[in-house]
């Protein structure tokens, strides 16, 4: 079977610090694939490498067999990859729904002429886009915020809004970096339901998360990083019993 993501010998150094070092793994389409590890293990760096925000010091990432080395984040988005951020990246100069509509950027024809003169074709597309964005906001549970300024929304709602924006791009692979961070128990439970719904739709999910209950319950496969290196790799059951993991992470 051909992997959706294939990572070989990936390395990223910041000065002398190897944030990611010799990491190899692959993600099959349709999986919920989680990356766990202590603070500073290199999880976010790994996501930044996969999404093209960082260029690897060495090693290779293949998306559907294609090397991503020369691809910009927006070109990766064109190939179906989208993500959210541990440090939320919301456009605070827009309303909530505009943030989600931004997620549909690649689905929209953007013709300068029809834009400037606001031709009916543009209005039709915009209306459809808005409708879809509204559905997604309801899907992630922030349907009550449509025309609210993003800057006026609560932290939890913004986290869900960011997921809605990523989903708006209709990605085949979505990367979620600590979506449960800062959420209370109820919100986390809702998030779990949401991630399951995303996975059921056939979207491959890569997840970085510290909430072990969430991760263990939801993942098909886990990758454990420690000091930038792969400590273990397996199903939740395997990881739970892995003595290295217990010693380095779960136990501590």
């Amino acid at each position, binding site marked *: 079977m051909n992997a959706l993501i294939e990572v070989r010998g990936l390395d990223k150094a910041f000065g002398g610090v190897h944030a990611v070092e010799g990491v190899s793994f692959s993600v099959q389409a349709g999986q919920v694939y989680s990356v766990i590890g202590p603070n500073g293990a290199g999880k976010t760096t790994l996501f930044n490498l996969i*999404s093209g*925000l960082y260029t690897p010091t060495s090693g290779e990432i293949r998306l559907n067999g294609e090397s991503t080395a020369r691809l*910009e*984040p*927006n070109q*990766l*988005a*064109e190939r179906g*990859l*989208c*993500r959210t*951020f541990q440090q939320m*990246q*919301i*456009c*605070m*100069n*827009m309303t909530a729904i*505009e943030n989600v*509509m*931004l*997620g*549909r*950027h*690649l689905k*929209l*024809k*953007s013709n*300068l002429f029809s*834009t*400037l*003169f*606001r031709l009916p074709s*543009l209005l039709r*597309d*915009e*209306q459809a*886009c*808005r409708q879809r964005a509204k559905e997604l906001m309801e899907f992630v549970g922030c349907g009550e915020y*449509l*025309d609210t300024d993003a800057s006026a929304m609560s932290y939890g709602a913004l986290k869900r809004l960011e997921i809605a*924006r*990523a989903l*708006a*791009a209709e990605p085949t692979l979505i990367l979620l970096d600590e979506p449960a961070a800062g959420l209370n128990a109820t919100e986390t439970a809702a998030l779990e339901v949401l991630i399951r719904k995303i996975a059921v739709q056939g979207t491959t999910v890569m997840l970085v998360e510290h909430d072990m209950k969430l991760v263990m319950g939801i993942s098909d496969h886990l990758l454990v990083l420690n000091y930038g290196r792969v400590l273990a790799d397996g199903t939740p059951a395997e990881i739970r019993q892995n003595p290295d993991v217990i010693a380095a992470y779960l136990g501590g």
Partner: protein
Amino acid sequence: MLNRFMQSRLRGLMVLAVILFSLPVFLSNPFHYELATQMAIIAGTVVGLNLLVGFAGQISLGHAGFFGLGAYFTGIMTGHYGWSAIPALVVGAILVGLIAWIVGRPILRLKGHYLSMATLAVGFIIAIIINNERQLTGGPDGMPVPVFDVFGWELSPFGTYSLFGIELNGSEAWYLFAAAVLLVAVWLAQNLIDSPIGRALRSVHGSEVAARVVGVNTARYKSLVFVISAVYASVMGGLYAHFQGFITPAVASFDFSIVLITMVVLGGMGSTMGVILGAVVLKLLPQILTHFQEMEAVMFGLILMLTMIFMPKGLLPTLQMAVSKRLKRRAGGQQ
């Protein structure tokens, strides 16, 4: 929902139209009209600059350069080569857009102070060229510009016209024309902002990282908005040249670039109506403070600084916030 939004867009435009077309009630002499016409033309320039600065979060400290290029291109083509004004404006805008695209590609990779310096340099280079090309531009002495015409039909500040049976003198007619142009400029800008392209532009400001991961080619959009704002400046510069009938390199000067950017910052970055207010206020100020003529640059610098420290959102957004806060408080008090 969409309907409501459309209405609110049109409402802003309508309010502006009412203000612009009822202003003549308060204008009693040609000098007032001249000032109001200049305001409208400069407001149009600032509306374009605001797309770059306020919405896309970039900066240009050389925008007078594009204004000056538009002014001189029109002046030269109509004056030396006998072109009609409209083709001169259009071809000028295309050329300036092209120039903006060529210089924009490399410099818009820069951020912050580096981008400021680079755009500043672009403005300086244009001003130097205009100053030195004496044969075409008249150098520091400036050059006369023929009367504005629409394929032979002339609009002169010294003519007399009639519109719907109303007698208008030339300065009144020019004001109405400039006001109409400003309305179109605002309408186009609003259409741009409230569109997929506009969201992409604003996302470059809001979160460039977010923009990139949802597929926005940020480099391309920065270039695009730089070109659009330069085209605005070029067209307005061309109109300004015809209206004034005489231009000097001051239209492309660093001082004027600073005036333009101060209008945007003072009025309210990202607020189209706000920057128009900024243009009006900063155009009026020197009239009121005539004694400070030599200190104009200092004054503008000071205004820029004070606004950024005490009113970072700008005049109109700050006023709007204050009003809505007061309304809310009053509504709360009644309960």
